[in-house]
Structure formats: C-alpha cells, structure tokens
C-alpha cells in the first residue's frame, strides 16, 4: 500500500514540476521546442507522411493546441461583433473557430514541414507580458517567410493569440469575414457558417 502511495506521490510531484516548467518556459524557447518537436514527429510518422489528415490533426491537438489561447483569438477576430454575442454563442464561436484554425494550421505545417527554420532571438524586456516571437522559414530561390507569434503571459503559461505569416495576421484576416457574416445573418448565422465549413472539410478528410 505504502509503495503504491509513494509512487502516486512521486507522480504527483513530477506532474507538478512539469507544470511549473511549462509555466516558466520562455516564449521563444517554447515556440522553438514545440515547432521542432512537431516537425520531427511529422517526419517520423509514416501515417502522416502518407497523407493521414486525422493523424496530423490528432498530433496538433496534443502538441500545439495547449499553447494557443483560442478565446483571445476569437474575440480579436470578431472585433466589435464580439460584444453582440451571448456567453453561449461565444462558447460555440470559440469551438468552431478553433476547429477551423487547427485544420488550417495542420495543412500549413504539413506543406512546409521539410523547410529549414531560423528561430530569432526574443526582443523583449524581462517584465513583458505581451511579446512577439519571430521565426523565419528559409526556402531556396525566394525570400524567407517570416512567421510572428504574438504571445501573452497567462496564469497557465505563455499562449499564442495571433499568428502573422509574411505580414498577414490570421486573426485580422478573419475580421472582415466575421463582421460581414454577422451583419448579414447575425451571430447565429456566423456560427452556422463556420459549422458548415468545418463539417464540409471533415467529410473528404475521412474518405482519405
């Protein structure tokens, strides 16, 4: 009995230490480690390389998703329309937008995972709680593509709230679309549109 308890204690202590580690990790270190780990896992995974989208999304759910703040991303993408949504609608919006973003991110990673990355040193002061981490994707015969992760410090560690690829903010890019949808058919209309989009993307993915 005591042996079991001791193992349980050890596990608890280990988990606590791991959690503390995640909290302490600097944002640029976090981006580098997660990117390299995911790219490495994709390279090693035969299923993903032979085109399994389900497997890729599973990997991103497990490794990347915990480091994103989807509530912030959704609120930013909604802009002034965010305040028109009820708490229940907000929850649905976050869920649908998350699904869409994860799928887009999965496609992008799969397409560019064999490129070389250049992780830039973080330019921030020690007390900052809102930073931008720069990564550059190097490619032959073309200008390197900069990817900027806008990150904020939260109680559960640093979280990404926007991804800016080649100067294009993903969150800002959805703002016009979201506002158009809300203007035309209300917040529920937008939720329906996002849901339909996600279902449509799921269908062919399962066939493959």
């Amino acid at each position, binding site marked *: 009995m005591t042996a079991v308890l001791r193992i349980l204690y050890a596990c608890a202590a280990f988990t606590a230490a791991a959690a503390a580690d995640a909290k302490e990790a600097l944002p640029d270190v976090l981006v580098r480690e997660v990117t390299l780990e995911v790219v490495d896992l994709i390279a090693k995974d035969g299923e993903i390389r032979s085109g399994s989208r389900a497997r890729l999304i599973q990997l991103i759910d497990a490794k990347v998703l915990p480091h994103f703040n989807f509530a912030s991303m959704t609120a930013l993408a909604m802009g002034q329309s965010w305040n028109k949504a009820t708490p229940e609608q907000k929850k649905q919006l976050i869920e649908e937008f998350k699904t*869409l973003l994860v799928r887009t991110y999965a496609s992008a990673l799969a397409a560019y995972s064999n490129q070389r990355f250049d992780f830039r040193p973080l330019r921030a002061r020690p007390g900052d709680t809102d930073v931008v981490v720069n990564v550059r994707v190097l490619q032959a015969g*073309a200008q390197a593509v900069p990817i900027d992760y806008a990150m904020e410090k939260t109680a559960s560690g640093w979280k990404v709230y926007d991804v800016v690829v080649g100067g*294009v903010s993903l969150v800002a890019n959805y*703002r016009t679309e979201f506002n158009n949808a809300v203007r035309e058919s209300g917040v529920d209309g937008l939720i329906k549109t996002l849901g339909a989009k996600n279902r449509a*993307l799921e269908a062919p993915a399962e066939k493959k």
Partner: protein
Amino acid sequence: MTWLRGIFGIVALALGAGCATPHVDPRDPFEGLNRGVYRFNEGFDELITKPAAIAYRDFVHAEIRDRVRNFFSNLADPLIGVNNVLQGKFEDGVLDWARFGFNTTIGLFGIHDVATDMGLEKHNEDFGQTFGRWGVAPGAYLVLPFLGSSSVRDGAGTALDLYADPMGEVSPNRARNSLIALRVTSLRADLLEASRILEEAALDKYVFQRDAYLQRRRSLVYDGRPPRRREEE
C-alpha cells in the same frame, strides 16, 4: 477576339451584380466589378494554369523545378536592386546586384542560388512597393485580369514592372512566350499548397484573399516592420 467579348460580358454582368451589394467596404469600392474579374481569373486558373502547374509538379523532378525557380528569380534581382536604390536602401540595392553577378556567373545563369549560400539574402521589391515607400497610399483594391489582386498604386507599379521585365527583350516571340509560360507555371506550382490552404481556411475566398493581399502589401512596403495602426473599433 471572342475572349475579349467574353471579358466585357463578365464585366457587364459584374457591374449589374455590383448594384445589389448593400454594404461597401471603403477599401474596395469596385467590389462588384472586382468579383467579376476574380471569377473570370478563377475559371481561367481552374481550366489552364492550375492543371499545368499540377502536371509540372508531378512530372518534372524537384531538382529541375528548383533550377527553373532560381533562373527566373535571378532575372528579377537587378530590378529589385533598382527599387531598393529608389527607396534609398543603397546597400540592399548593391547586394541585389552582387547577387545577380554571383548567380549569373558562378551560379551558371542563375540556376544555382550561390549568393544565398554566401549570405546575400534575397529581397522582395517592386515599383508598387517603391511608390508606397514614397508615401503613395494603395488606393482602391483592384483585381486585374490574369494578374489577380492589386490596387490602383500597385497596378501602376505592375505596369512599370512588366515594362522593365527583361523577358520582354527575348526574341523571337515564340521563345519569349514559352519562357513566360514556364515562369507562370513554375510560380503557380509553388502556390499549389497555399491555394489549397486558402480554400480550406476562407469562408469567402474573395474577401480572405483581398484582406491578405492588403495586409501583405502593407507589410512589404515597410519591409516587414509596418508602424502600428490604431484598431478601427
């Protein structure tokens, strides 16, 4: 000339459809017309450019595609240098010409990008960006036939880019046209993944692409460091 009539037909249709659009985005006053041209471009792409690009990707070895990409990229470097100088970035301009010098000689007419390996980075400049750097605002968003997303400012820039394009000097015409077709196919092949992602990510492809273009150009004018803009909220 039937295709010209086709374009006019589409334009007329688009103008008609434009009247039905109730909300006008101030950045895109010609949205109805632009959407018409966009649909035309999409159709042309689906029918000709994209299938050619897919065939090119599937049947031409990656190594050769790299050489082709490098060759055309090298031909563009002198003009990129001119634009850097026009923007007052003399050092960058000289480096672009150095890139052209090394790649054309050691890199065998540009098929090897030896300059990048030497630490000379590739830049992205054109006349539209130069105008932007001089303080010209983009003006209305435009979708140009065949060329796609643009603006009043960038469209004028593109006209100059095309005028100064070394490809125009190639003769006979058949050789020039083949080279242009190869360049377009190579460019489109590199965008196959990106266009698939766009397809997946966008609720309204036209709006998503327009906003991405405007953001991207703004970032390029400021070489990736645009001044912070107050959110219009």
